[in-house]
Structure formats: C-alpha cells, structure tokens
C-alpha cells in the first residue's frame, strides 16, 4: 500500500471527525431553513431539544460501551442527578442572577460536575472488578437515585435548608420558607433556558471533547484496556485511573444532557418515564443500533429512533418491544462468531476486495 498517493490532506480519524461535525451543522442548517419557511409543525419543534439531548446521551454512553467496553445501565440516573442539581441552582438563583447567559453555563457546569462526582463514587469500587458488575451496580444506582429524588422534600428558609422524606409540612419551615423539591411533584419553576441552538452547541462541544478524548493518549489507553486488559496492564497502564477517567467523563455529559432536559421544561419530576430503567435502555438501543464504538452512528440512531415513533403514531405501542428486538437481533448479527466468520468469507466487503485483487493481478499480467 506504500504506492498509494499521499494526496489526502488529513488523517483518517480527523476526516471522520470533521464529517461528524459537518453532519450536525448541516442538520442544524436544514432545521433552521425549515423553521424559517414556517413549515415546521409544533410537534417537530417540540422534538428538537430532546433530539439534541438524546444525541448527547448516546454519545456519552458510547464512550462507556464502545470505548471502555463496559456497560452502564444507569445513564438515566446520571442524567437525573445533573437535572436536579442544575434545577436547584437555577431555581435558587433565578432572582439574583437574571441574565440567562451567565446563569445557564453555571447550571451546566454544576449539573455536569455533580453527575461526574456520582460517576467517580460508583466507578471507584466497581470499575476495579471484571465482569458484569458495573451493569448491575449502575442499574441499581439509577433506580435508587430516582426513587430517592421522587420522595424527598427540600426547602429553605432563614434558618437554613430543611430536608424530609415524609411530607411538605414535616419540613417545619418558617413563613418565609421556600419549597425547592416537592416530593413526587419535583421542582417547579425552572427557567426554560435551553433551546435548539443551545442544544446543538452542547452537542458539538460533547462531540469535540469525546472525539478528542478517544484520539488522545488517555483514549488509546482506555481502548487498550478494552481489547486486552492483561496486556495493557503489563505495559504499565493504570487500569482504574483510565477507566475512571472515561466513566466520569461519560457521566459528566449525561449530566449535561440532564441540564438540557430540566431547563427545557418548567416542571421537573423524577418518574420512571424520564429517568427510569426504560430511559437507560433506550439510550443503549441508540448506541447498539448506531454501532458500538461508532460515535456518528449513535447520533444518527438517536435521531431516527426518536423521530420515527412520533411520525408513525401506530408504532407507539410497539416501540419498546421494537427496542428489545433491536438489541437482540443487532447483537446476534454483529457478534455471533458463526455469522462473523461467515461474513469474513462471503461478505460484500470481502467480495469486493477479492475482485479488486483479481483485477489488479490481471492488470499486472
């Protein structure tokens, strides 16, 4: 292959990354044009921010599943942490910091960092182990955090912060007290700071950080752990450190997606619909359908699978069943040893390769 002309200006990785950024920008431009012509339905407009959010979630989960090679089933939990932490901040500072251009970035940082802290707390014990424990622990974490936030009452008054698991009245607040988290009703009055442009910018930032992380020294270390842990360990790669970096980075962006979610709606309540197991599975379906380890694929799958059931209303009841089938079938097609070796023998790519090789030998002759 050394005879290949060196006409390519960019490295293969860089080119692929640029295509991904370009794809997002083109999608943004298309949406803006449709919006400018006024032919966008309110249904589609309502989907724009969730699309960005799901894309961010899918990219961040792909970092764990595809690059780290572990499975996190608690991504909705990290999202929940980010959403609640940032909402509490925004509700409390709504009067003091009136400019959303200052308030929202701080909210983003708070949400992301809180989620990352939880990621580290869970990651330290669990990432040191092999096997499927991370899946179980993250799944449990997601459910527990949802249940706790669903039953907690928090308020503050002149005496300080009050917390209770029973009811609003058991907080025992003064007259001037303000309720922040109202149990199952959640947080009320979050400023709606997020919009489509903010979502796209956040998606681009996420992509930029994640893609550059993958190509960095740390990213290569993480991938070497995924491919052969023992070999990587024996050349001196610190397993816990690199796994923890990747995992907390992923949790950080899940938290960012949570901030985007909570600032898109006025009322934030933890239900099994938005922060439960189903949400974590849905993000996993995006990653699996888009291709494990393929960041661009995750975004495409997230957009297609979110938009499709909204367009095809009849499918709505069968949506989750469809997800389950996608998970099983995609895994068997891509990973079954028999099918893999079959593809290697008779697959389209192989077919083209042998054909080209034959032609080349003929030309030489």
């Amino acid at each position, binding site marked *: 292959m050394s005879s290949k002309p060196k006409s390519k200006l960019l490295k293969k990785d860089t080119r692929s990354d640029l295509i991904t950024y370009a794809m997002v920008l083109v999608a943004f431009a298309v949406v803006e044009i449709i919006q400018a012509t006024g032919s966008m339905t309110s249904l589609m407009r309502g989907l724009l921010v969730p699309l960005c959010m799901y894309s961010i979630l899918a990219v961040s989960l792909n970092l764990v599943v595809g690059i780290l090679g572990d499975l996190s089933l608690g991504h909705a939990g990290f999202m929940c942490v980010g959403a609640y932490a940032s909402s509490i901040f925004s509700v409390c500072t709504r009067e003091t910091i009136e400019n959303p251009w200052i308030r929202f970035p701080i909210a983003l940082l708070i949400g992301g960092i809180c989620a990352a802290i939880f990621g580290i707390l869970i990651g330290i014990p669990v990432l040191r182990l092999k096997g499927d424990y991370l899946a179980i622990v993250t799944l449990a974490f997601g459910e527990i955090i949802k249940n*706790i936030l669903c039953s907690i009452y928090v308020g503050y008054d002149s005496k300080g912060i009050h917390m209770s698991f029973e009811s609003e009245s058991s907080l025992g607040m003064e007259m001037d007290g303000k309720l922040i988290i109202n149990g199952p009703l959640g947080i009320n009055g979050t400023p709606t700071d997020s919009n489509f442009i903010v979502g796209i910018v956040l998606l681009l930032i996420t992509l930029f950080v994640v893609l550059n992380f993958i190509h960095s020294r740390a990213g290569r270390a993480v991938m070497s752990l995924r491919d052969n842990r023992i070999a990587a360990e024996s050349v001196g790669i610190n397993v816990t450190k690199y796994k923890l970096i990747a995992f907390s980075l992923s949790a950080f962006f899940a938290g960012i997606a949570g901030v985007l979610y909570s600032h898109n709606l006025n009322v934030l309540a933890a239900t099994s619909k938005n922060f439960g197991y189903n949400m974590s599975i849905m993000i*996993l379906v995006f990653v699996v359908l888009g291709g494990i380890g393929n960041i661009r694929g995750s975004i495409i799958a997230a957009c297609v699978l979110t938009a499709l059931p909204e367009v095809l209303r009849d499918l709505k009841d069968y949506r989750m069943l469809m997800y389950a089938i996608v998970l099983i079938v995609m895994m068997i097609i891509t990973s079954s040893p028999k099918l893999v070796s079959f593809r290697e023998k008779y697959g389209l790519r192989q077919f083209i390769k042998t054909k080209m090789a034959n032609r080349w030998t003929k030309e030489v002759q």
Partner: protein
Amino acid sequence: MGFLNNFINGISLGSIYSVIALGYTMVYGIAKMLNFAHGDVIMVGAYIVFVLTTGAGMNPYLALLISMVACTLLGMTIERFAYRPLRGASPLAVLITAIGVSYFLQNVALLIFGTQVKSFKSILEFPSIKLAGGKIIISDETIITIVVSLIIMIGLTLFVNKTKPGRAMLAVSEDRGAAQLMGVNVNATIALTFAIGSGLAAVAGVLLCSTYPALSSQTGAMPGIKAFVAAVLGGIGSIPGALIGGLAIGVVEILSKTYISSQLADAIVFAILIIVLLVKPTGILGKKYIEKV
C-alpha cells in the same frame, strides 16, 4: 416481639431470593453469563399461574406444574435462540442480548396484560401459626416458602453431586474445553442448566406473588437483581452460597425497611453488593480462581 416477626418475614423473603439466586448462580457458574432475563421468567411464571387459577379456575397446584413446564421451555428457547448463537462472543455482546431478552419479556407482558397491577391470589390455604400467645405470627406462606426452598436446595445439591448430568454441569463450570474433550455435551448441559433455573423461577414467582400479591410486568425485575446480589454475596457458582446470600439479603432488606427507611432499603442492599465486591469479590463460599494468561 416486633423484631422477631420482622426477622421471620426477612427469612421468608430471603428464601424466595435464594430460590431465584439459584438460577443466577447456576447459569453464571456454567455458561459464564449474567442471565438478565431470569427475573422476568419469574414474572412470566407468576402470570401463567395467575391466568390459569384466577382466569380459568384451575387447581392451583396443577397450574403451578403447567407454569413450571412452560417456564422450562421458555428458558430453553431463550438459551437456544438468543444466547447459543453468541457463545464465544464478547461478554459485552452477551450481556446486551440478555438485557434485550429481559426487556422483550417485560414488554410482551405489558402488551398482553396492560399496565394495571393485578392482585395475585395466594395459592396456599393453610392456617398460620401463632406462637407466644399470638404475639408472633408466622403465616402459611412463610412456612411453605422456607420449606420449599430448603427442599429445592437439598434436591439440587444431590442432583449436582450425585447424578451424571449434574456432574457434567460441575465439569463444564470448571473447564468447558476440557469437559468437551472428555465427552461431555456442553450445549446440552448448558440447556439443562437453563431449564432447571427457569423451572425454579416459576416456583419462585408463585412464592413471591403469594407473599407480595402485586403482579405487573415489573414484578420480577427488582427481586431478580436483588437475588443476583444474593448470589454474589454467597459466592457465585455455589448452591449453598445462594441459600446463605439469599437469607442474608432478605433479612437485611426487611429490617432496614422497618427500622431505617423504606426508600433506602434498596440502596442498603446494593451497598452490600459494593462492599462484598470490594472486600471479598468471591463471596462467602466462592472459590478463587487464578487467572492465567
């Protein structure tokens, strides 16, 4: 006396967990995979009994038998069509498939039976025992649950250690390649493991729903995961370990629900998992294997 009552309830719940944990621990020991769908097979088993008794008015014990057979077949079908094609694939692929199967069963049940929680009628009708002048009440479900799980545990231990298919299971769990070379049919052994685990799941489902009568598509999910915690605590791959782990988790859960907080009970159970994984990853009765390169 309240403490003793709670303790007995904990033992009862723990016995159910240990029956479920058996399914996890056997499959994990032999097929080296976490069968996420195990908890949902429990739910299927309970639904079958519910439909046959409440819907068709069948004798509950006959219904239980039919449910066991159906779950056995279901377990073998899942193994044949979802897990067997992936034998030798990366653990991540197997795990994602197992989650897919679990999600599939939950959503099929959701489509058939709807979101409404069904009230499961206990199939047991024995009088409960009152001790110490009625201060300690042991319900019939508690007694039957404990007795049934003990019988299952003893039967399974005998089966694994004394019979030929049982010893084949031990051989496969020890070293799959070597077992195959010695003439053990690995595929059939793994299928048998799934069959036994799923049949027991039907029993566990009925026991669980007789004690806690709310039946929905989510019924099996959380108990399944807690039973996995129990299996890890007892030492994964070990049958007596499943019993010990299950009882411990059941007692801890009920006691923390009563004395600490019902919201935090689940968190405490999973905190145990993390502590076990950190301090003694092989569990109480697990064997330690040295990893060779």
